[in-house]
């Protein structure tokens, strides 16, 4: 079988986004998508894997994330440096607008990438944290569906705690 001098052939997989764009990814990236792990391990990932819930824009970002994480973890660097590096990368990676963040969060949930799901949930929470009601509505572009009377009733119920 393969000797250490021989170049090992890297397995690649094809992922097809909702809008039909096909991405070529290495196995180390593909296995991070828990949702398709079984397909890969069962050798059922040919010719390509269709990911119906993810657009090409978001899938490209997800692949970038997984690629960086795969490379950092397999590189020869010490665990501390790798951790630092991933932290810096994650921070920069989260520097996108709210709508992309929501889509990334949803995609991470669908593709079952735990670390990305955790990261996006945490980032979304930190965006909402300490915001006023109006700021939160504005950030996510949502309409107030409470009537004046209904809003008053909720405020009244919790009036003792609105200090």
């Amino acid at each position, binding site marked *: 079988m393969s000797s250490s001098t021989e170049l090992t052939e890297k397995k690649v997989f094809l992922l097809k986004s909702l809008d039909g764009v096909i991405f070529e990814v290495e196995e180390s990236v593909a296995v991070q998508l828990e949702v398709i792990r079984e397909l890969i391990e069962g050798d059922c990932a040919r010719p390509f894997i269709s990911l119906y819930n993810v657009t090409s824009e978001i899938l490209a970002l997800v692949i970038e994330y997984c690629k960086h994480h795969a490379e950092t973890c397999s590189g020869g660097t010490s665990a501390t440096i790798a951790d630092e590096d991933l932290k810096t990368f994650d921070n920069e990676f989260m520097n996108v607008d709210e709508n992309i963040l929501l889509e990334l969060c949803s995609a991470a949930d669908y593709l079952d990438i735990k670390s990305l799901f955790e990261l996006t949930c945490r980032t979304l929470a930190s965006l*909402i944290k*300490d*915001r006023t*009601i109006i700021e939160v509505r504005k950030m996510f572009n949502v309409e107030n*569906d409470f009537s004046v009377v209904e809003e008053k009733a909720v405020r009244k119920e*919790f009036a003792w705690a609105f*200090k």
Partner: protein
Amino acid sequence: MGDDGFFNLPSDIILNIFSRLPAPTILNCKLVRKKWLSLISTPEFVNLHLSRSSQGLVVFQQESMRAQEDCRILEFEDDLDHNDLHYVPVIKFELSELLGIGRGATVQVGSINGLVCLRTFCHEYDALYVCYPITREYIAMPVLDWLVEFPSQVLYGFGLSRISGQYKVVRIFHECVLDPTTGALSSIPKSECHVYTLGTGSWRGIGGVPFAYNCRSVGQFFNGNLHWVIEDLEGSELISCFDVEKETFQPFSSPFPGERHSRTLHSLGVVA
């Protein structure tokens, strides 16, 4: 995802995000949109938030010039970047405003799963309530004619029954008579125990209590039981164990019986 991105997320993802928010933001989120209000009111949210939130510290503050007392609950956050332990005030409220009563001293009777049982008392009243700071809900227990004068005693405990999952506040009352010469406890002509199960709205008598309770500590809850330091009439120390599910008392002897002459059991605590 369009203009309404957040609201197209599945409920479990929204709950996951909300469960990471501090209490004041959660209160704001209730008023952003009706769907959020209903999500935050679900038991799923409460459980998820509890599983994630750290333990907090309850601080009572009395302003000497004004007849009011504040209750603050602090949550400590791990700051990974600075290795500092810093706290965030989760909630502050005026107790007198909450209960509509005058000045009293407030102590915490107990806290389980984010519920905090508080007692405010003075020479005029003795009030108990359970509040849930995260969703800003509270229950005031009916105040009965229960003013207790020295040397009689009253003790409380707050527990969770193991099987039925009910939260219960336990009140133990002793009418005590002291020996006029020595000042030591000579008899207990009357003792009673009442239980308030959350959700029932009333206190329920469960009969007498077979021991003399020492009012030095509030009941410590762990493992489905409430514990108090007690003495029998011969002066032997015991630890009372009240099964919150069965509502029965099963005392066990002091863990250090040989040291009775030099040391007395003072109070109990729980290692969490």
